[in-house]
């Protein structure tokens, strides 16, 4: 188990910075998700920690020791690759023994460790098979097994579930999480999937354009996003963003209609235009006479409820509801945004205002 500390870490391949001066502390035993869209630098960051790439600037420390110049093999970190990267010419047993043989452990000890890890992952009957004779889910497990058998200082996961189908992904999510609880090892998990980040991580590091946007617990990022990027990345269906004007006494006016009220943030004058963020599940339906009148555009049934696409003048928004009232495209309904639901953002910088 280890702490991993990044100080002002940057990476530039020569075509402009991929990572710009990052500071991050990953605590002992913590499960941290590096989350962001493709090209945000999350995988590069993981590879810097692994030692597969060298930082252009800054310092990486593992347990307080500077590792910038330390080879991957001497960092004692285990990595699970997106492609699994199983050695195709070796059996499952040989795959899992590789690292231990590399350390020249006695054969009896290797056998015991591999078999313990295999039984933990349900691989016992597959030890003599080659990777090509395994299903996607089994390969994924072998990749996990190869990592846990070493008992490393920390686990690095590079989008390990993205090659699995939805059902298997959900199951592996649970298993990785359970494994983390049992082993208590520091884990860094790269994903572009906000559901994975939300469900698995103790803390999420939201990355965009090579810079950290926000660090915090999943709930914290969900409830209090620091900017438009984080607000829009987390949640499904995603947060609604509407062009709004701040009217006196904190009224938020969208397309001439007052949609919500906030206690006006200091320094914001009435008449300021801003971006209003509203989570679909925080909105409620009512009669058109009681709430803001909006028109139903499309209704999607999800099983647990319905996602209703609404039109407010030329602007569109979505609402998630379990309200059973009949809804048809073209109906006019009332929309209520309860206090606390509206989040305000600067439309230019994207920064949170309230």
């Amino acid at each position, binding site marked *: 188990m280890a702490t991993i500390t990044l100080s002002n870490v940057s990476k530039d391949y020569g075509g402009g910075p991929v990572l710009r001066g990052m500071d991050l502390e990953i605590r002992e035993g913590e499960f941290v998700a590096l989350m962001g869209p493709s090209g945000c630098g999350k995988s590069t960051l993981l590879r810097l920690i*692994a*030692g*597969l790439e060298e930082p252009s600037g800054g310092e990486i420390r593992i347990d307080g020791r500077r590792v910038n110049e330390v*080879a*991957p*093999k001497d960092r004692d*970190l*285990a*990595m699970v*690759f*997106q*492609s699994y*990267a*199983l*050695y*195709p*010419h070796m059996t499952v047993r040989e795959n899992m023994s*590789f*690292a231990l043989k*590399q*350390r020249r452990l006695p054969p009896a000890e290797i056998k015991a460790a591999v078999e313990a890890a295999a039984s933990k992952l349900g691989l016992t009957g597959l030890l003599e098979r080659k990777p090509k004779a395994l299903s996607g889910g089994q390969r994924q497990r072998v990749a996990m097994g*190869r990592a846990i058998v*070493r008992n490393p200082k920390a686990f*690095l996961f590079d989008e390990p579930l993205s090659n699995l189908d939805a059902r298997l992904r959900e199951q592996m999510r649970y298993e990785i999480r359970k494994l983390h609880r049992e082993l208590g090892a520091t884990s860094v998990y790269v994903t572009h999937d906000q559901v994975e980040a939300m469900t698995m991580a103790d803390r999420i590091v939201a990355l965009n354009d090579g810079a950290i946007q926000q660090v915090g617990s999943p709930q914290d990022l969900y409830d209090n996003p620091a900017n438009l990027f984080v607000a829009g990345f987390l949640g499904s269906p995603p947060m609604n963003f509407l062009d709004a004007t701040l009217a006196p006494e904190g009224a938020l006016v969208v397309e001439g209609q007052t949609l919500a009220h906030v206690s006006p943030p200091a320094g914001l004058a009435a008449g300021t235009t801003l971006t209003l963020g509203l989570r679909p599940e925080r909105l409620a339906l009512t009669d058109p006479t009681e709430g803001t009148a909006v028109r139903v555009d499309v209704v999607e049934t999800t099983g647990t409820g319905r996602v209703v696409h609404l039109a407010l003048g030329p602007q569109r928004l979505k609402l998630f509801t379990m309200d059973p009232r009949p809804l048809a495209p073209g109906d006019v309904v009332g929309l209520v945004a309860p206090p606390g639901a509206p989040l305000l953002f600067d439309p230019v910088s994207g920064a949170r205002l309230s």
Partner: protein
Amino acid sequence: MSKTTPHSIGARVLHALALAAFVAFALFPLFWLLKVSLTPDDLMYGEGVRLWPSRVTLDHYGSVLRHSQFPLFFRNSLIVSAATGLLATAAASAAGYAFSRFRFRGKAWVVGVMLVSQMFPLVIIVAPIFRLLAPLGLTNSLTGLVVVYTAFNTPFAAFLMQSFFEAIPKDLEEAAMMDGATRFQALRRVILPLTLPGLAATGGFVFTAAWSELLFSLMLNSSAAVSTFPAGLLGFVSKFSVDFGQMMAAGVLALLPVGAFFLVIQRYLVQGLTAGAVKG
């Protein structure tokens, strides 16, 4: 493809005919080689245009093996080709791995120069190479041939090896390095076993190229003791006659090792030539 319309049958027949014509055209000289090697001397001219002689004989093979220097040429060729195959493959693997995995200064230049080296007609550089090798004592020597063949075969072999390495995901050696291996250990324990078919194909390709090379063998070596078999074949041509029967018999014998070798490696060779293209 599965639909059998008259049009597609016609197209398939044409396709098959075109292929058959090509194969016949390509293989007919080989057939003629075999036919002449089995034709007795007295029928050589009398039945010169018949597809198969009325009598066949193995006499030519017997005299080639017993009374000519061909076994010596064969041995020389074997030594030169095997050594060239090993050396060029070793050098090409190292270069191909570097091209495939590393970014280094001047990489584009190195690749460019290697490409350019493939563009000259070799006839142009025979004389300078002779002038370079003579003072080093490398003319009239098998070593000299090995040096020259290795030099000229390594560039293409390196590109071939590169395409084999490209087909192996980088993740594999990175996984090995995370698992505690140095880059060299990762290469030896993970990448090399997966490249064995590529190594065999490259080795075979170079072996074959060296095996059939005539120009340098003829120009650099004048003594029979260090002649390879393509140069040796010319020994069957004398001032007054050409001993076609023996020459063809020697040719058939020389064909056997490469033929067998190619049969084994051709699958890998095609794989290697297309690996890079498919991966894009």
